[in-house]
């Protein structure tokens, strides 16, 4: 198991949210959308300019900006390295 920020994940990759480190309005919005620890998600794709990122979570598609995705830690299943992508 390997924990990475959501931003670092690549298209199609799956994982489970382990931590949301955002407070205030952003934190509340993220949680209202159902992004709480333990929630599985999958990266659906990225906008043409690589930002925002689209994820599949709880039967719907949500897009968030990369700087918002930074605050979400995801436990990814494989040991593949995704470092250096889209930073």
């Amino acid at each position: 198991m390997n924990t990475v920020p959501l931003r670092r994940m690549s298209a199609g990759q799956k994982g489970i949210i382990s931590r949301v480190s955002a407070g205030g309005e952003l934190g509340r919005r993220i949680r209202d959308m159902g992004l709480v620890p333990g929630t599985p998600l999958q990266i659906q794709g990225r906008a043409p300019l690589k930002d925002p990122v689209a994820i599949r979570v709880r039967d719907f598609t949500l897009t968030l900006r990369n700087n918002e995705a930074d605050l979400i830690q995801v436990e990814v299943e494989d040991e593949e390295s995704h470092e250096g992508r889209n930073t």
Partner: protein
Amino acid sequence: MSDRSGEHLIALAGNPNCGKTTLFNAITGARQHVGNYPGITVEKKEGFYQLNGLQLRLVDLPGTYSLTAYSLEELVARDFLVQERPRVVINIVDASNLERNLYLTLQIMELGIPLVVALNMMDVAAGRGMEIDVEELARRLRVPFVPMVARTGKGKSGLLEAAAELAERNPSWEPLYISYGPDIDPVLDDMESEIKAAGFLTGLFPARWTALKYLEGDEQIIKKGSEANSQLSMHLEALAADVTEHLRVTLDSYPEAIIADHRYGFIAALLKGGVVKRTQKADRLYLSDQLDRVLTHRFFGPVIMMFILYLVYQFTFKYSELPVSWLGTGFAALGSFMESVLPPGPVKSLIVSGIIDGVGGIIGFVPLIVFMFLSIALLEDTGYLARVAYMLDRVFRTFGLHGSSVMAYIISGGIAGGCAVPGVMATRTLRSPKERLATLLTAPFMNCGAKLPVFAMLIAAYFPDKHARIMFLLTLLSWTAALLLAKLIRSTILRGPSTPFLLELPPYRLPTFKGLLIHTWERTWQYIRKAGTIILAISILFWALMAFPGLSESDRRTFDEKKQSLLAQFPEDMKQAALSKDAPTPPKDAPENDATAHLAQVREQLQAIDREAAQMSLKSSFAGRIGTALESLSRWSGFDWRTNVALLSGFAAKELIISTLGTAYSLGESKRGQDIPLGDRLAADPRWNPLRAFALIVFIMLYAPCFATVTCIIKEAGSWKWGLFSMTFNTTIAFLMATLVYQGGRWLGLGT
């Protein structure tokens, strides 16, 4: 509130994109009323439904994901539930997206309002291989669930009967109890009993709910609480602060986060044990996802988007052209009819130039607005608009805007020739307040259809061989100006971090025809009703500015005497011919004789006197005096009183610039489109040169929007201050830029 003459108040609540508006339209049909919540710009929709002699008053609350106090929509929804205390809430839940939709349901149930859940989109859920045990779900949550498909109206009557039955029974509010775990529950219990003992806000909210809001740090509730009982409020805040600190130290978390975790945990438990069965793998790609693979593709996505936005633009402006011209012709005919029947004088002038032109101006926009809202409703209801925002967000965010801002820009004239009135109204699709305000303030910098004939005239006069190139340059200039000024606004008066983006991409759906029509009609009607009255008043004001005080008695006499002396040489019957507006057309084969040639010559002289009188009247009018007074300032950008007065009339409508400039140059009343003589006249005028013309173009591009737009800005921004801001800010920027162009050009030795 609920019992007024056997009427029950029922609120519709639900997430965005859950089919709430579709259901509302299906129930109330055309019997609905759209207004605003007092003081803010969130729409309030109300409608009625008769059921077995019962009158149901339905209010469509704004779509929200939650009942926190962060966005205006959420506050409105929550305040309505608490203050209006509807008998029943119909909570629309998207069955294909149960978990997230039930999150709102739980929050409504924690308030305790009697609830009926409309389990919508059962067809979509079934199509995705989801089987929902509705009875078991209803039993577990202890609220009625009505499965339905709002698009087809299936289940609608069952839902209304369930809601009416509940409203008649009128049960008391029974808040749902959710356990928030060992860290929160003890303190929540303590707070609850203290609140109950003190009767603290208990008339409004359930005690446990108030306690929860203190833990969540809800500013609105804490403010209310400290007004009601500041001592207890401070005590509760202290208790909440203790828990917050404890959680930070032990779990590195916030109470809010723990609360959300438990709510989602509650939902997970609710759906366990076969309540939801899936016959397909959850990560299967559905049609909608497959469409997205193409429509948001790195390369094809933007290309298709450009094409679709271009189509919207074409649709809005091409198809409205015909009805717009019918309306124009109709009002022109009405104007000339009134002109022929009314006696000359200020009353006639008021009716023809003030009222008919004013009303014509308002109604003239209607076809445009209809087509604009229709195309936006289409993009919105299909789900494509969210993709546009998704794809363009990166670009627009750089300037402090939002991906959805592009719509308003394009409609306002981003592809030359739009209109800022529907453009400003198009910002309604934007949910981030600061980004929305910055967008609607900068959209009027685009080159709208009314600025174009003015540009065309000036370009034809000074840059005749470079028409296309200059027009393209102007389009680029207006985008640059709008984006940079948006950045300026967002880093000064609307400073602050961007609103969280977190945009849902709803599945692509075919919109219903009825929904599109209702959507379009209600917004158009709102425009006619609200903007109409203000625009009419302003156009009358402008008419008065241009018409009064008119020529002085002695000047009028001088002009009359000049005319009479010219006419004295003709017999009575010829006088009429000389004065009549239409030139007598002699038969083609009639020989040219001296008499007709002389008559034509005198007619020409008489008309010249009229034009001179019109010019003098304009110069001495209030508008003319303002224009003259401004000369000391405006000469920096190269404008004299004639240009000033024309620009002033452009406040009323930009296309008036040409006709006013024509009058100021005593060219008589030039009708729209007949701007060539003015162009020739300006090109021949030694006071004019290409530099001055270009400074004028820059000024017209940037200065105060027309009054119709300002009215819409006031309405959409929710305060007249923003209307005032837009007028002064834009005019200041325009003046600075035009001065820069003119003085800079002169310094470089141009335009002499």
